[in-house]
């Protein structure tokens, strides 16, 4: 079936474009069926149509580059990007329908890319075509990547207005969507790697978008360099996979992995070289998805424009690590050590980032730490083999975190860069900020895991699964995740209660847009409320975040057996083969089925977290310093809040551990270079000079001294001849 499909798509773009244009025309449909002789329920969408998902964003990127070169000042780049990215989303929807109906992975051959052969034996040919492998996991990712990209591009059209690099921004933005699509849809590890590095590049370009600002330039470099560490692991993993499987194409890898799994089931040992592959791949995932110990770049990445934070650093790029592990879950299942490491790193990251998030005052950074924390949940989910839980959380998180970031971004935009939650209050009562505030409330409820919201369900799947997993210490990680859920609820609503409700009070930041009427000329500060584009996007996203819980509610009330996301994941390579998710394994939590009781436990914990935030940051705000509860809490915690506020000095620790020794070594090498290497090189320069200098006097320039030399030489010759003869 697969082969038929790819064979039928040999010149897919031309053929299927024709079919697409002739949708409804019977002749086009019959032509298509003649090419691909298999049952195909949507004749107007051929498999090669999927390539358009890649064509649209790269076209938008090129066009925006042209606009930037031409110095276009209007909003043309924004509308071009929104239109083309929207077209990409529509195409994704059509492809998604095709894949869902055919219920088989769609393999689309784009063009021959790399085909190198240095022998005839297996493993001596490297074939990496520009081809797409679209299964249900890919579809899930592509749906929210293209959908959110379109919405956030629309948001950016207003948010970035007036920026000098308006066209440049949309060029990078669309390039990112292209690269992310390559990453998710590629049919081989090499194409995944191309996309992986491509999104890293776009992330670098967009974090450092305001490159005149030293902190932004430094943050961009930090993100790029920290990701090098992870990418080294991924590159080694790809190479090892090639040496072991003799191919980089998913089909071939998964075929061989299935054989190895079957052999392992008969008690055959899995070779260590295969078991090392997931260990290397997960290093790459930790880097890209900002997990311990490589998370340090993500909080700094908030220097980039907020739409970038929302799309790249919250919803899509940082989930690439989750995608990688989910895609290669069969390989990870071959090595329990790798799975346990993923689970532990995820659980610890979730907790660790939440502690910092509780103490940070910059609302955008609170969101950044919560992203790290939520990504930790997803890794925990993968580690306990609940790939469905992880994928669920990726999708719900993409929606509510994008909402949260964009709401924070509107605040930053309207209040001249003010992000300190101590200096903003009661925005919901300010004219024109209703949509932002209610969107923020929706996002906060989802992130906090308020009962019956989407974040609540997806997080519960992961926590419950960690209690039934037989992984090393999984129950402890489950308890840690429960504690983290409470902390998440607390820090989320700390932001909401501080900034959006309570008495109206605000101080402007120090960034002023050109011509927005609130300069430093002594006038009272007037925040400028967001326009229709921002409000529309926020409304749509918060509705999406709310609607994401509908499948879970249907599941809860028995209207469907499992959520559609779980269905998607279970029919892809990410399906965990060892365990069946959602079935009682006999494991219990407090003597009950963990999947059922977790709804009450985690819901209760979330409510407690919100209640504490309410007590400390809304009810007791004015007398927070003197209230007995706050004093009691402060005494119990001791210096911990200050440490957390200083981010546990991790940056300083890395500075001491890596940067300082490197700095010292660099100076040592500098001296070695200056003395030894340069010494040798300079010696070779000095030698001819010294020899020449010693011979210099002979070239006196006087005619007769040369004549004396000639005569003397002649005489010497004669004497020699005389002696010899």
């Amino acid at each position: 079936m697969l082969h038929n499909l790819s064979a039928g798509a040999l010149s897919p773009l031309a053929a299927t474009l024709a079919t697409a244009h002739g949708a409804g025309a019977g002749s086009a449909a019959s032509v298509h069926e003649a090419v691909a002789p298999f049952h195909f329920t949507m004749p107007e969408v051929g498999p090669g149509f999927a390539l358009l998902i890649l064509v649209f964003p790269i076209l938008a990127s090129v066009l925006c580059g042209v606009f930037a070169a031409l110095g276009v000042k209007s909003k043309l780049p924004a509308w071009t990007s929104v239109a083309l990215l929207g077209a990409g989303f529509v195409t994704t929807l059509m492809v998604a329908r095709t894949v869902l109906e055919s219920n088989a992975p769609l393999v689309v051959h784009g063009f021959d890319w790399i085909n190198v052969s240095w022998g005839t034996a297996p493993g001596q040919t490297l074939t990496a075509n520009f081809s797409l492998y679209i299964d249900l996991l890919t579809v899930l990712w592509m749906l929210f990547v293209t959908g959110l990209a379109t919405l956030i591009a629309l948001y950016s059209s207003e948010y970035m207005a007036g920026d000098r690099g308006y066209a440049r921004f949309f060029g990078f933005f669309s390039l990112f969507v292209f690269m992310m699509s390559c990453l998710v849809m590629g049919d081989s590890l090499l194409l995944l790697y191309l996309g992986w590095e491509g999104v890293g590049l776009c992330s670098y370009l967009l974090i450092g978008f305001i490159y005149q600002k030293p902190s932004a330039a430094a943050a961009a470099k930090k993100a790029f360099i920290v990701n090098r560490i992870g990418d080294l692991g991924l590159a080694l993993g790809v190479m090892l996979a090639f040496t072991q499987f003799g191919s980089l194409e998913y089909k071939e890898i998964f075929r061989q992995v299935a054989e190895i799994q079957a052999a392992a089931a008969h008690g055959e040992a899995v070779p260590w070289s295969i078991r090392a592959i997931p260990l290397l791949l997960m290093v790459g995932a930790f880097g890209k998805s900002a997990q311990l110990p490589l998370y340090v770049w993500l909080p700094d990445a908030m220097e980039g424009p907020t739409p970038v934070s929302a799309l790249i650093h919250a919803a899509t790029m940082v989930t690439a690590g989750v995608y990688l592990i989910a895609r290669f879950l069969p390989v990870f299942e071959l090595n329990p050590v790798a799975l346990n490491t993923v689970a532990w790193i995820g659980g610890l990251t979730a907790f660790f980032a939440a502690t910092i998030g509780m103490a940070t005052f910059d609302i955008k950074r609170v969101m950044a730490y919560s992203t790290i924390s939520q990504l930790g949940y997803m890794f925990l989910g993968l580690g306990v083999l609940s790939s469905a839980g992880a994928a669920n959380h990726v999708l719900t998180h993409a929606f509510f975190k994008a909402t949260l970031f964009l709401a924070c971004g509107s605040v930053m935009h309207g209040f001249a860069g003010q992000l300190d939650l101590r200096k903003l209050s009661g925005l919901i009562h300010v004219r024109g900020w209703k949509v932002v505030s209610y969107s923020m409330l929706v996002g906060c409820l989802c992130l906090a895991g308020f009962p019956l919201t989407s974040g609540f369900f997806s997080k519960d799947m992961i926590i419950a699964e960690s209690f039934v997993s037989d992984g090393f210490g999984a129950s402890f990680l489950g308890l840690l995740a429960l504690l983290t859920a409470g902390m998440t609820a607390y820090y989320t609503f700390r932001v909401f209660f501080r900034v959006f409700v309570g008495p109206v009070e605000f101080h402007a930041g120090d960034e002023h847009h050109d011509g927005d009427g609130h300069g430093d000329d002594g006038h009272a500060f007037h925040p400028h409320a967001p326009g229709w584009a921002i409000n529309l996007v926020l409304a749509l996203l918060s509705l999406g975040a709310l609607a994401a819980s509908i499948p879970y509610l249907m599941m809860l009330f028995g209207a469907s057996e499992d959520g559609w996301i779980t269905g998607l994941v279970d029919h892809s390579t990410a399906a965990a083969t060892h365990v069946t998710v959602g079935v009682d394994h006999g494991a219990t939590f407090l003597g009950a089925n963990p999947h059922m009781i977790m709804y009450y436990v985690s819901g209760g914990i979330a409510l407690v977290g919100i209640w504490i935030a309410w007590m400390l940051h809304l009810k007791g705000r004015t007398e927070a310093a003197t209230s007995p509860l706050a004093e009691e809490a402060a005494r119990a915690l001791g210096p911990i809040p200050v440490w957390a506020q200083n981010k546990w000095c991790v940056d300083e620790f890395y500075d001491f551990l890596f940067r300082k020794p490197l700095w010292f070594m660099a100076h040592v090498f500098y001296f070695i270079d200056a003395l030894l290497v340069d010494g040798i090189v300079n010696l070779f320069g000095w030698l001819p000079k010294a020899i020449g200098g010693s011979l210099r006097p002979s070239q006196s320039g006087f005619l007769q001294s040369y004549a004396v030399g000639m005569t003397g030489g002649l005489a010497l010759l004669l004497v020699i001849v005389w002696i010899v003869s």
Partner: protein
Amino acid sequence: MSATLGPLLDPVLAIAPLADVTLYHYLVVSAAMFSLGIIGFLTRRNMIVMFLCTELMFQGAGLALIAFGRYWMDHTGEVFVIFVLTIAAAEAALALALVVLLYRKKGSLDAEAWAQLRG
């Protein structure tokens, strides 16, 4: 002994008869001329004198060639000297022109005035 070369040379011939003049004598004269040329070239600073000294060396060498030619009863040496003389004439014209030019530049015939090629 029959030949007389005139009153001026006859006393000389009386001391050293012409028949006794051998190749050896010619070569001694030739070497003396050449050495005098070298000594003059090395010791004098006047460019015209130095040039004359080189001519002296030339003629010393030419004399040796003729002497050898006569000794072997072969005209090659004589022919060679005629060629050399012709070329030396042309070369003399060139060299004197150069000396004139050099003199015009510095107002002096001293060879030591020219040492621009010192290393």
